């Protein structure tokens, strides 16, 4: 139950990151006026990002109800792994070996925290 809630929260929060980046690049970059920022917040990309984050946060509160935050929070860094993969293959950002090595360390750290 806990791990299912955690995985669903990670999936929704990762999707939100990618949608936020797409929205920031397409709608926010180059804007100067507050009215333009507000219009950008209501673009499909950022509305979807907000929906994902609201649902992900609701699930996250259910996780916090059941687990220590010092134990649960490191699991959220699974989001880093998903976001890094999405940055590379969906957003086509260059990701170096260094960064993948960093991701491997993060996964090792999560595994260690998970084992307690």
């Amino acid at each position, binding site marked *: 139950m806990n791990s299912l809630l955690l995985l669903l929260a990670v999936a929704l929060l990762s999707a939100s*990151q*990618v949608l*936020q*980046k797409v*929205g*920031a*690049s397409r709608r*926010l*970059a*180059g804007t100067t006026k507050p009215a333009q920022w507000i219009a950008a917040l209501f673009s499909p990309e950022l509305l979807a990002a907000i929906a994902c*984050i609201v649902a992900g*946060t609701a699930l*996250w*509160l259910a996780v*916090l*109800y059941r687990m*220590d*935050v*010092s*134990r649960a*929070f*490191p699991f*959220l*860094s699974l*989001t*880093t792994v998903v*976001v*890094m993969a999405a*940055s*590379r293959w969906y*957003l086509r*950002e*260059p*990701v*170096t070996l*260094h*960064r993948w*090595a*960093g*991701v*491997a*360390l*993060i*996964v*090792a*750290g*999560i*595994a*260690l*925290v*998970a*084992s*307690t």
Partner: protein
Amino acid sequence: MTTRGARWIGAAALTASIVLSALGQLAMKNGMRHLHLAGAAEIAWPITSPAVRAAIFWTVLGLAAYGTSLLTWLAVLVRYRLSYAYPLLALSYVLVYVGATHWPQLLEPATPARTLGTLLILAGVALASLTGERADR
């Protein structure tokens, strides 16, 4: 970079995102802890139970901090690549760990495995973020 404002704005937005997301997590956890303490019988309308009131207070405070961090995060995303900026957010794991184990309201147990795991994550974040290549956009 130069077209998107001074460099310090990006750094300030990044710092605010990291600190606010950690404070938000700690406050939300404290809200859920109070809800746990309240038990099912006290969760009723109108809200009279002090534990339920505390739960709502801390959860709303946590959500507000978290919501503000999302806005500062958008200011970060306009300026940096996602693959550079996102790993830096994990600095908040360390803040959450120290806060959860030292804040008198929570006092979660610090175990060697959790401490080492959190440090490994921090090392991974440093490796993933600080590679000296172009980070903007």
